[in-house]
């Protein structure tokens, strides 16, 4: 196997943990992972958070992040074991033979330097090119990656280009020194779906044209299926399954892989509107204090009791602002909101306790939506105490009932948020809002920070709870798969306006307007060759481009 570029054998990675109240001890994060990567091929590493996929990716550069140590095994790159190489050799390797594209380009670029300077830096420092040649190559790469005005974009600063463009600049940065291997660490995770497609396409073509090999790390199987040749499924530092893309997607062997492939298979029948809407938003126009720009223009939507209205759109479409207007955090300039038959005061101070109780909210980041110094019992118990005056045994009984509803046991009562997993945290937030016995819960991107399987569990839970408690959801999301799974009505938002609004089937049935078409077609599908199909029949450019 002379063309094997990277050969990893029995890779073990460990770290020292410092649990409070215990002696520091060593744990193993990755337990003996092996794979081969031939020149010009792409291996997708996929798994949930904590699966060790990024750690393995960095190990290909002989690097351990934040106290992580490579404790055993071999990593062969270009015929030598880089774990046994000296620091000088490793220095040549990083940024020369192996380069890295990180998840957040915005956080990885130095905001004080021009893009060109940063893109060419590694190639020049490594002595591969002189400055002139490196800049020529960078411009060539900018053009190849489909960046607008490739001759001059390098003269801009990172904040002067959009998120999707910056991510492509980072890819140019990685490809500039003509590496043999590029490690892509979740390069499209932070982007909108419509932008994600452009970046994916650019990355895929650049890999093909330059003949570079790549490790592509992501948690989204549908994405990795578009760019990889082989896929390795990881879980808790172990290899679950390793095979070709075709085999993993179409014929998965392991249960865990099957679950990943079939994720987002929730079915939900659309309900017809009943007589009186619980929430009625009429002609809302809103802007933030001190700005002269309307974020929402003339938005009107209705939500019926016990049903779900999904508000869909990309970042900047005004969907979260709509939530702030409804909760009273941002009084609108025009328009009115009626809720449960009453007219709602535009600002928070004018609302009655009853208004506040019946309109609850669940946040995207469960981490910061709970006070880290309060136990689960206090967090869930406070609304009971506050709205219903419950105390002592009565309160405790109700908290335990709520914990049972969110499928957590009584042992969680005395835990702190930091002792919960991401999914458990979001469940506690759900219980907190349910404790108030609301008529409406606003769910602001509640699943977007979660791994797909966990998100699936949360969506199922929300649907079950809707049946039991007869609560309505206003579901804000950018993820159309989620929308398809749970909504009764859909409002598609674009640049602060409602672009398309109606029942789920109606909204999701052609003919579409151009924007809805773009949005719908951009959702990655678990299908080989999907990317090419989509690119082939697009009608408009995405906003982030």
């Amino acid at each position, binding site marked *: 196997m002379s063309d094997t570029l990277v050969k990893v054998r029995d890779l073990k990675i460990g770290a020292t943990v410092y649990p*409070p*109240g215990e002696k520091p001890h060593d744990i193993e994060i990755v337990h003996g992972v092996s794979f081969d990567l031939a020149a010009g091929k792409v291996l997708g590493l996929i798994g949930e958070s904590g699966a060790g996929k990024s750690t393995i990716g960095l190990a290909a550069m002989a690097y351990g992040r934040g106290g992580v140590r490579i404790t055993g095994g071999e990593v062969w790159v270009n015929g030598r074991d880089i774990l046994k190489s000296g620091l000088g050799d490793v220095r040549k390797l990083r940024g020369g033979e192996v380069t890295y594209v990180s998840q957040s380009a915005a956080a990885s670029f130095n905001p004080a330097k021009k893009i060109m300077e940063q893109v060419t830096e590694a190639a020049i420092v490594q002595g591969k090119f002189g400055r002139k040649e490196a800049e020529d190559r960078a411009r060539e790469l900018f053009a190849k990656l489909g960046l607008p005005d490739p001759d001059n974009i390098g003269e801009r600063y990172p904040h002067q280009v959009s998120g999707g463009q910056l991510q492509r600049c980072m890819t140019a940065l990685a490809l500039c020194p003509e590496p043999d291997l590029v490690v892509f660490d979740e390069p499209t995770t932070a982007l909108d779906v419509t932008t994600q497609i452009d970046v994916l396409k650019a990355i895929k073509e650049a890999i093909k044209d330059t003949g570079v090999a790549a490790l592509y790390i992501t948690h989204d199987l549908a994405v990795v299926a578009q760019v990889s040749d082989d896929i390795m499924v990881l879980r808790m530092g172990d290899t679950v399954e390793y095979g070709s893309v075709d085999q993993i997607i179409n014929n998965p062997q392991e249960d865990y892989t099957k679950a990943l492939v079939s994720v987002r298979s929730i079915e939900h029948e659309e309900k017809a509107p009943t007589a009186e809407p619980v929430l009625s938003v009429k002609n809302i126009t809103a802007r933030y204090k001190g700005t002269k720009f309307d974020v929402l223009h003339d938005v009107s939507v209705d939500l019926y009791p016990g049903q779900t209205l999904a508000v869909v759109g990309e970042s900047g479409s005004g969907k979260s602002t709509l939530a702030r207007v409804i*909760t*009273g*955090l941002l009084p609108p300039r025009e328009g009115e909101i009626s809720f449960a038959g009453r007219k709602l005061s535009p600002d*928070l101070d004018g*609302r009655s*306790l009853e208004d*506040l*109780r019946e309109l*609850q*909210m669940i*946040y995207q*980041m469960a981490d*910061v*939506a*709970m*006070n*880290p*110094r*309060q136990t689960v019992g206090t967090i869930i118990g*406070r*609304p009971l105490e*506050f709205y219903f005056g419950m105390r002592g045994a009565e309160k405790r009984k109700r908290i335990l009932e709520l914990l049972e509803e969110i499928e957590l046991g009584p042992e969680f009562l005395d835990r*702190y*948020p*930091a*002792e919960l997993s991401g999914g458990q945290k979001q469940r506690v937030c759900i219980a*907190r809002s349910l404790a*108030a016995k609301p008529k409406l819960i606003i769910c602001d991107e509640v699943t977007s920070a979660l791994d797909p399987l966990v998100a699936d569990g949360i969506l199922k839970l929300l649907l079950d709870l809707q049946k039991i408690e007869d609560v309505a959801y206003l579901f804000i999301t950018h993820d159309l798969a989620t929308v398809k799974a749970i909504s009764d009505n859909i409002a598609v938002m674009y640049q602060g306006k409602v672009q398309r609004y109606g029942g789920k089937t109606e909204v999701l049935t052609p003919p579409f307007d151009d924007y809805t078409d773009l949005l719908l077609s951009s959702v990655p599908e678990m299908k080989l060759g999907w990317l090419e199909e989509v690119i082939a029949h697009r009608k408009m450019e995405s906003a982030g481009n």
Partner: protein
Amino acid sequence: MKNIPVSAMIGLFLTALYFLTALFAPLIAPYGVAEVVGDVWEPSKVEILLGIAPEGFTESDYWLGTDNIGRDLLSRMIYGGRTTIFIATPATIISFTTGSILGFVAAVLGGWFDQVMSRFVDLIMSIPTLIFALVVLSVMPVTIPMLIIVMGLLDATRVYRLARAVAVDISVMDYVEAARLRGEKLAWIVFREILPNALSPLVAEMGLRFIFAVLFVSTLSFLGLGVQPPEADWGGIVKENKDGIIYGIPAALIPAFAIATLAISVNLVADWVLNRTTSLKGGRG
């Protein structure tokens, strides 16, 4: 309590020693605070034991010698520590309660309350604290409660700044927004949502502020505007014995040593408390 590091043990021991001595001063001190027992600046027993006493002295009844008018220095140090600590502690408590509560409220309410409070605090802080205190104390009667209140309120401006800065960060967190949406009153938001999360920087600051209070009261006494004779305090003892330094008499350095060791030991304890509170489950790193 079994996992206390050595540094915290030393700090706890010395801090406890100083506070207990202050509490039980009349029982521990060998002589009265204003009692003249010997000659001016007699050498101490310590000096004789170490063999560094001036020639001709072979024995002494006084562990730390006598002061500028022949009072027992150990007794004055013990009574002086009592006065100093008893002024610095309530002053620190006053500055922390008023400063942090007002700072939190300003951060949560924002708007005109924040503007008025913050500009007022800026105004006070623009005048050097010592000069401001000298002016106030030259007008007001110099009694111990007055000293405590003046010191506490002046120091509260610093605590206000810190508390507001910390709370501004916390008050934009989603859990505070959630509490607001729930309809919680100001008191719950300040004491239950913000205070527990702002504790770490405040505890760290408290160790420092207490020592600044000790130094401040000592400075005032040294300038003659703090504790009035014949009452003793550490700053006053330095003032009374400062002329002795010219003759090689170390009496004025003893209070300085006491202040230094108290400062270090209190901050060793504060560091330990800080480590404990930040490593609390879910604490802010």
